[in-house]
């Protein structure tokens, strides 16, 4: 059997992961020297208020090589194969940890590790796609890996954030290139492009920012999968999902977890999609 594994930056809703049998390996969130596991002992409900009130921003770190070995080994011992689908290696060391873990295990031919070049539900949607693919047909690890890798080029992620502060302080976006002042209210629109986060627009009003996301989804249509993500404003995510619902695609609403939330900040709204 092929087993799908992803990491907690995928922001995959738990019900979906459970239903599709996807294992989610947590990254770590650090407040000073306190370390929490994303989605295991720290959740959005406690995380966002703390993010807003904490003077020191949290840090994040990838799962250790040992964490990966602990997840991989029982499946391998059981004779299973693994497709491990992860956040862009340009944004996180998670892919590297996974690769190192693989190299320290015996049956390395049974593990395929995929760098999605994406983030959040971009990773989540690819994982969903992968889980459905292996469920639908009997397919070899190599063939499945190829099909999943091909879908990376059709995956896009856009986000509207209230401030670049969290991304800049966290070092996930270049400081010089992305010009957003502090003197005037301006909201950046970001996109994951070739594995890094770039700014593709800036809007003053929140409504226009949301309209940008809506337009981006429409520009990539027809869609195979669509997800609407939010950090603290579920109502807005619902409204946008209703607008983008069609007979072919029902948007998956997901909340940005603590690791992604560390960079997106409160009131972020985002979309991820795989075009058909």
């Amino acid at each position: 059997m092929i087993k799908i594994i992803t990491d907690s930056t995928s922001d995959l809703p738990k019900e979906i992961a459970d239903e599709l049998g996807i294992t989610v390996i947590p990254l770590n969130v650090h407040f000073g020297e306190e370390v929490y596991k994303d989605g295991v002992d720290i959740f959005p409900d406690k995380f966002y208020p703390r993010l807003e009130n904490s003077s020191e921003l949290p840090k994040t770190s990838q799962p250790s090589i040992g964490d990966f070995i602990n997840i991989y080994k029982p499946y391998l011992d059981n004779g299973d194969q693994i497709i491990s689908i992860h956040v862009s290696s340009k944004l996180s060391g998670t892919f590297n940890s996974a690769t190192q873990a693989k190299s320290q295990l015996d049956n390395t031919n049974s593990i395929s590790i995929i760098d999605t070049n994406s983030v959040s539900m971009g990773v989540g949607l690819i994982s969903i796609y992968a889980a459905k693919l292996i469920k639908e047909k009997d397919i070899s690890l190599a063939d499945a890996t190829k099909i999943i890798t091909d879908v990376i080029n059709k995956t896009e992620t856009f986000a509207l954030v209230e401030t670049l502060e969290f991304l800049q302080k966290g070092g996930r976006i270049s400081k010089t290139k992305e010009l957003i002042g502090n003197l005037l209210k301006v909201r950046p629109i970001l996109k994951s492009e070739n594995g890094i986060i770039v700014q593709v627009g800036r809007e003053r009003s929140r409504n226009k920012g949301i309209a940008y996301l809506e337009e981006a989804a429409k520009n990539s249509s027809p869609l195979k999968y669509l997800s609407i993500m939010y950090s603290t404003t579920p109502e807005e995510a619902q409204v946008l999902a209703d607008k983008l619902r069609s007979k072919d695609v029902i948007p998956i609403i997901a909340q940005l977890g603590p690791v992604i939330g560390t960079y997106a900040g409160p009131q972020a709204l985002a979309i991820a999609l795989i075009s058909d």
Partner: protein
Amino acid sequence: MRKTIKQMKNSVSFNGQTLINMFTYSSYYLEKYVATLNSLNVFPVPDGDTGTNMLITIKEVMKSIENENSCSASYISNKMSEAALMGAKGNSGVILSQFFKGFETTLKSKTNFGYEEFIISLERAVQYCYKAVGTPTEGTILTIINVAARSARKLYDKGTSPDQIMNYTCKDVKTSVLKTPESLEVLQNAGVIDSGALGLYIILEGIRIYLEGKSLYSTNIDFPENLNINPINLSNLETKKLSQEDDDIFGNCIQFFILSNNINIDEVKKEIEKFGSSIVAVGSNSKIKIHVHSQIPDKLIKSASKYGEIAEVTIENMDEQHNKIVSTQITPPQTILFSIAPGKKLNNIFTEFGAINFNIEEEKYDQKGIESVILQSNFKNAILLLNGFMLKDDSILISNEFIHILNTNNIAEGITAILNYNPELNIHKNISNMKSSYSSITSIEIYKSTINTEVYNNKICQNDYYAIYNNKLISKNNNIIMMLNELFENIDLSDKDFITIYKGNNTSNSVKESVSKYMTNKLPNAELEIIEGEYNSNMLIISIE
């Protein structure tokens, strides 16, 4: 019988407890310098946590052997390596875990060990660490582990007295740490040495101090004095002969960046004013670009270096503009944005969005001054936002095909234009995007007249309020509400959801409050932002988009 040197060396006997003690020292010093390490972190991701990650990793290692009395080097190194593997945080932590793996595999099934095994452990660590990274990069922690292993091996094989091996090794390592910026450009640009490299040096220093039998608390490591390196060599400037006599009053046109954590732009300007004229200082509190004319560039730059690291210096003799006397890492930008806006606040807004702004109120720029700064700049294309400034028809800027002048009527239009500039797009696409963006907003100028006068052929009495929209007087009244009512009779506000009010110094607060209250009632679902423009005028702008 006399012992050979080799036997002598191996008569030094280490065991499991030695390992614990060595890394207790390392961990202590690492904790001491954790904040410094974090502050240097620019590679691979400048997220300021290299120190913390290394510390958390080594603390996990120490926790795993906290109450272990075993003397077995094999047992202790195995526990340490496993703990490091499980507890590794971040890239530097992952690499550090492989450092411990070097000890684990070398000391397997050994209770005691000597320098030979210690050095083999370092050599193995090099191999594991390089393998642990997708694309090994020199100038990082990896380089340092490598230098440490090679240096120790060379000293040992040469027959160096054992108690001196770590001493000399650490000296070599320190030299390499200070050289990390030479191999890694991002360090050079940021003007720092590599954080992970320094972290590993601290760990090795801990080992050295323990092996020298010195006390933990009363001894300090040999900490490098100068962590910031200077990205340009100032002595270059002094050796170049500048023919000052031949220069006109401007002398040289000098441009450079100052990089620091916290720069007060006004303070820097004041300092530079002592050495030159026509100063344009733009940027944030961490990076300022200076453009200045001076006859004494070397003194000027030396003085500016008090405020931070100096980078990307260009000095041009203005009579021979193409003769670059000093130039490091210049990539002439494809497009430069210029704007004209009065007052400090608006000046800062435009500079935050990447423009070089002419603060016509404070800097007293006239058309000639503006022309000369623009023409002396190094660019392929320039965009100039006029924001209401009247350029005379015979301006040399108009006839220059590489200078694109956008006739924005006021600062509100200018700000909208600059927000729609995208460096990824070509100049023509940008010009068209910017033009359509500022034409789509509604910006209205509101005044309260202080005298009896005439505006666009309409009689205005003292204390009348009047509104100008699209270069026409739209309404006037001595009651502000009635004036606003009349104004909005014929302006379509459907789909508008963001209002910005810019207020000058000479507009009263009561006018500002009447307008903002009126606008909130008019468009209850729109967001409203009020900018205290700090410019000397009684003009208030309502910008609706």
